[in-house]
């Protein structure tokens, strides 16, 4: 039992240090929990300032005591290496642990333990936590907007069919792979447009007509981002080629187009599509709000896509151009057969990021009065029967958007890694 040096713990009295250190650490956490959740201050006899920091001090002492090099215990060594290399690091670790407890416990209460799940009216929400009943009741509105309840199968059917067509490209036999671009860039947009026109909008084949003003919710988010993506891609490609062209007029008109759209906020572009665009058309022509919005977002995103594609074009070595030219290829042949296939492969992650930004930008269409998910939340929030549940709504929308965007960004990172090793 001799040689116990608390300033410099060592292997000799390993278990003693571990027990005392563990006790101190637990004491710190318990002190913190008691302070915050039970309003009991076990260190109240100390002056206020010190008593406030006791959890940190106890935790720090605890971590200091278990910082034993080459202890021979695998878990302990890993722990020390990762969160406990020196006193400063230990202090940070303890602070983070305390912060996590401080944040997670009330959140858990709000989300699950005190929350209400059962019922179908505001009265069912009695606990102090979240009222998920609200989400349950409004779920259809959040997904389909004001689309009539009985007709919602049409939206579902359209999405399933379009997804099916999209997935079909994956199973193309190798022989027809060269038509894949054609399939995605021309065939798929036409099919989806026809589906949306006849199935979601309706008005023919005995289907009830539903005006675009009634579309909304998450499905509208998907429709807007899907079409904007499909259209902005070819436009962006042309702009990128234009910007790198030798022809002065083509170059500078592409350049100013790109710089113009990149220099203004999307919200003013949407304002423009709402109030300025009708002024630019012959009197009496009416273009549907949704189409105007899709045009606006398409042009806006096309400028960003163009810059991404230009990055890919620039990354190709000059030799590719020279080699293709020496084979006697003209401008279009050179670009379509040699440059673009390589450049586009390089920029797929960048395009994915642009698409991510596009999805995150769609809530802005509330400016012109179209209500996708976030817009529907704001509408539901003002319903007199359901006042006071804005928090639940925003959290719900946040989770949905987070899942969409996070999975997409992870996928794009995966693609990035995959293409990196190729070169």
């Amino acid at each position, binding site marked *: 039992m001799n040689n116990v040096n608390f300033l410099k713990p060592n292997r000799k009295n390993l278990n003693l240090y571990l027990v005392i250190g563990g006790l101190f650490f637990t004491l710190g956490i318990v002190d913190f929990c008691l302070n915050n959740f039970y309003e009991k201050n076990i260190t109240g006899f100390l002056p206020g300032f010190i008593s406030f920091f006791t959890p940190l001090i106890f935790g720090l002492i605890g971590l200091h005591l278990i910082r034993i090099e080459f202890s021979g215990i695998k878990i302990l060594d890993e722990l020390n290496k*990762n*969160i406990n*290399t020196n006193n400063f*690091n230990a202090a*940070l*670790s303890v602070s*983070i*642990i305390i*912060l*996590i407890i401080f944040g997670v416990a009330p959140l858990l209460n709000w989300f699950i333990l005190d929350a209400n799940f059962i019922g179908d009216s505001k009265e069912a929400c009695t606990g102090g936590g979240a009222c998920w009943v609200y989400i349950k009741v409004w779920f259809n509105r959040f997904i389909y907007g004001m689309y009539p309840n009985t007709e919602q199968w049409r939206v579902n059917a359209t999405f399933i069919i379009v997804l099916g067509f999209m997935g079909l490209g994956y199973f193309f036999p190798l022989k027809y792979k060269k038509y894949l671009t054609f399939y995605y860039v021309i065939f798929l947009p036409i099919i989806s447009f026809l589906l949306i026109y006849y199935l979601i909008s309706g008005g023919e084949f005995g289907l009830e007509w539903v005006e675009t003003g009634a579309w909304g919710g998450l499905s509208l988010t998907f429709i807007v981002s899907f079409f904007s993506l499909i259209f902005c891609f070819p436009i962006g490609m042309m702009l990128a080629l234009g910007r790198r062209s*030798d*022809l*002065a*007029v*083509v170059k500078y*008109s592409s350049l100013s187009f790109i*710089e*113009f759209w*990149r*220099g*203004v*906020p*999307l*919200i*003013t572009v949407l*304002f*423009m599509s709402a*109030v*300025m665009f*009708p*002024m*630019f*058309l*012959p*009197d009496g022509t009416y273009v549907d709000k949704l189409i105007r919005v899709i045009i606006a977002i398409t042009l806006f995103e096309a400028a960003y896509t163009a810059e991404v594609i230009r990055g890919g074009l620039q990354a190709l070595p000059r030799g590719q151009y020279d080699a293709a030219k020496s084979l006697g290829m003209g401008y279009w042949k050179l670009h379509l057969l040699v440059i673009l296939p390589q450049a586009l492969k390089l920029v797929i992650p960048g395009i994915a990021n642009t698409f*991510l930004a596009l*999805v*995150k*930008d*769609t*809530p*802005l269409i*509330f*400016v012109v009065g179209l209500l996708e998910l*976030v817009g529907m*939340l*704001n509408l539901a*929030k003002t319903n007199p029967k359901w006042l006071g549940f*804005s*928090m639940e709504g*925003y*959290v719900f*929308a*946040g989770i949905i*958007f*987070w899942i969409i*965007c*996070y999975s997409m*960004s992870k996928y794009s990172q995966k693609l990035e890694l995959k293409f990196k090793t190729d070169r």
Partner: protein
Amino acid sequence: MKFKKILPQFLTLLFIVLIFGFFTMNAQDNMDTRGIEFGFGFLKQEASFDIQFSLIDYDGSRSYARAYLVGLLNTLLVSIIGIILSTMLGVVIGVARLSPNYLINKTASFYVEFFRNVPLLLQIFFWYFAALRALPMPEDAPLIFGSSYMTIKGLYTIAPVWNNFDIFFVALIIALVVIYFFNKFAKKKQEEEGKQYPKFLISLGIFIILPALTFIVGGVDLSWSFPELKQLAKTSFTYEGGLGIPPELIALTLALTLYTATFIAENVRAGIQGIGKGQKEAAASIGLTPSQVLKLVIMPQALRIIIPPTTNQYLNLTKNSSLAAAIAYPDLVLVFAGTAMMQTGRAIEIVGITMATYLTISLSISAFMNWYNKRIAIQEK
């Protein structure tokens, strides 16, 4: 061969001219039928609407041009605050993501992954309509740090009251000029004679001492005005005196900062990771101290990677601040493209001016960036 070059250019030009011609003609027609005349004369008319938050003197009797200025200043205010805060947060988070400490590393990446993947508008709504609405009413608000009140109507805090502020301000500018020339001088000395001055300490000294002197000799005086609770009606309270920051500004700044900081953090991380280990080792092997290694070798190279994308984020932040319109913070878009346009009905002029303003900000910053990039680019032989 020549024909091949001219034809596409001619077609492009024709296309542009046709489109613009078509739009202009229609616009002319439409304005004629509605009896509107194109022009910017309306800017001088009386605006006759109030703006609830303004940095300069403004009331309904001022002109539309003045209202435009108020909106522009409010946009710049929220952008500048956002830029400063998000840079500080972004750098901390970016460095934290490189920390060997598992907990810190993971917490930082959780923060980044969470906030960058939720739409900014949703975040603004969350802070404004959900989080800040949960704050107490003015009469129930507790005192924070002996100076401020966080209430549902905004943050009320102390405001500085200056006497002879202009003298202090001039002293501040003189101090900056002196520091600039001192640094130039010190650099020259070092290059010529190899003599090193403690640049940072002396600069800091000048920066503190010179303005501080004005308190003694210049008659500058600083006191603080505290917010005080005042009853407006039986159940309606507010604070008087001090500095009142509206909840719209707080929500907007919070959301913009938390969102943009994630991108800046990623830039900082990429920048620091982009510097090879060899650089550090080489610098250490020629006898530089760790702080010199960081200051003279690592940071100049890392900044070269970090600054361009970060300026892009600053631009994005400025453009994103236009989302203010959604929560009624009186920025350029809300005041000018919103209220002023509703009143005058001059869609083309007003949307045009608004876009031109943002475009000017963006283009001037990117012009500066191009210049800067050229300046710091590695001169390869």
